[in-house]
């Protein structure tokens, strides 16, 4: 991390790799939790699938560690698509691939690049899964997160603060899925019975955004005297 202007940090590819490692750790730690959420309204494999996918990501990262952020993120996407399966594979895979395309060729990510990557990720998820806000899916956590990130950056917040707001918005979005009636995926077959359960996809999306905010804060703290 380098401090350019007042508090404005950029993310190097090394830090991006660190963030991806942390995502894998968090998904492993939440494997049972995500699977139990999925057991309530889906098919009880979301935590297992995401953990398997990010373990495959970790295996692939050494081959691209000196590449640009776009290549790294695209590699993550391809690894997820080919190992996660279910709906999570194409959705998270597309998200990372689209994010990678948004920052192709870059070795340092400015706050606007982080926003562009997350925005592209969300658009990719919507394109692939055709879900709308309120359908009780990943989109319900990602949409408020991207909106909060954009708003915070527009209001002059630094990346750390903006990502913190994005994580808070994602968490709220995740919780907001509890009273929703599922309209997409396997949960939709429950109809009314899907009400009262938190969506596992929205939960994993929140966890990943949370990691981004935590990593940014950690980098910031390290840099401060």
């Amino acid at each position, binding site marked *: 991390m380098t401090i350019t202007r007042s508090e404005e940090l950029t993310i190097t590819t090394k830090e991006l790799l660190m963030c991806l490692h942390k995502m894998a750790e968090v998904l492993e730690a939440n494997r049972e939790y995500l699977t139990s959420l999925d*057991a309530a309204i889906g098919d*009880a494999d979301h935590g297992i699938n995401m953990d398997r996918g990010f373990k495959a990501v970790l295996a692939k990262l050494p081959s691209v560690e000196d590449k640009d952020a776009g290549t790294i993120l695209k590699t993550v996407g391809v690894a997820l698509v080919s190992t996660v*399966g*279910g*709906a999570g594979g194409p959705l998270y895979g597309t998200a990372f691939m689209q994010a990678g395309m948004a920052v192709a060729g870059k070795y340092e990510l400015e706050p606007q690049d982080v926003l562009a990557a997350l925005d592209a990720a969300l658009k990719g998820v919507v394109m692939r899964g055709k879900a709308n806000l309120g359908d009780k899916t990943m989109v319900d956590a990602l949409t408020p997160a991207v909106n909060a990130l954009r708003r915070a950056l527009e209001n002059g917040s630094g990346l750390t603060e903006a990502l913190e707001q994005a994580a808070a918005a994602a968490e709220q979005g995740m919780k907001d899925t509890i009273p929703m009636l599922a309209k997409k995926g*396997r949960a939709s077959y429950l109809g009314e019975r899907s009400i009262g359960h938190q969506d596992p996809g929205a939960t994993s999306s929140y966890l990943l955004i949370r990691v981004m905010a935590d990593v940014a804060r950690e980098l910031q703290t390290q840099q401060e005297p």
Partner: protein
Amino acid sequence: MKKLINRPADVVKEELEGIALAYPGLVKVHFEPNFIYRADAPIPGKVAVISGGGSGHEPMHGGFVGVGMLDAACPGEVFTSPTPDQMLEAAKMVHGGAGVLYIVKNYTGDVMNFEMAADMARAEGIRVLNILIDDDVAVKDSLYTAGRRGTGTTVLAEKICGAAAERGYDLKRVADLCRRVNINGRSMGMALTPCTVPMAGKPTFELAEDEMEVGIGIHGEPGRERMKLKTADEITEMLALAIIEDPPYRRTVREWDEEKAEWVEVELEDPPFRPGDPVLAFVNSMGGTPDIELPIVYRKLHEICTKKGLKIVRNLIGRYITSLEMQGVSITLLRMDDEMIDLWDAPVKTPGLRWGM
């Protein structure tokens, strides 16, 4: 959890290793990415019919690879869709220059993964069409759900389309036939007991000793109603009437338009059954229900079809599309025409279905 397995994580891999050893003249197995394919593939000039889905539904799909049925099957983890790299590599391995039909059960994950695979295969110059199977009448509408799930009709579509491809139908004709089989087939299932995904280690849902779930999906998705256990006759009647009296079912599905070279929304409608319709009656064990109970269901199904004026011209009774060790049954009725009957009767030689050769 009591299962004949070594390590939960090795279940699919070791199953595939066993299949490769058991049927060497018939099928081969490719690992990483995993798929089962015809030993004599590719067959030049023949449309390749490929399917796939989560494991745990055996013999579907891997058991239906062979002469007169599937050219390849892509197994995912248990109850988890396979991934596009499997479907792409399978297509590259078995296509004989006449294109590939992906037969896809309508589950969100399967649909997305097969769409990505089709895009990737086309980028490599292989003609691919995807046809969805969505026949489970337990799901009433498609407005607030991901639509009807793909169940028993899948097995029948794989047999009929496999025979058509074997006979030299071109890709468009095999795809049109597959769509026709789908809109004429309806299914519904029920569970007496839940099942346990090896990696999860505990049952996917709970049912009391005196309860059953009517309208269950093949991954233990809940159905229309949980109720007190009834007799075989009463259960058969519930399933059969839900199928026979199902009104026209309308929905839009996404298919690839070769002329426009893009995915388009296609409106489909399943016509309801009418007296006089010739049907194939398919009674299927969910895995744990023994053969002794299936004829009891068929007996009642036959009586109901007769009473409703449906003429059973063919049947299939056994364990073909399962949910691991779940006890329960599903019924599928497929309205047949002469072409479908002819293709149904055509020789088939696969580990899971074999006649005429």
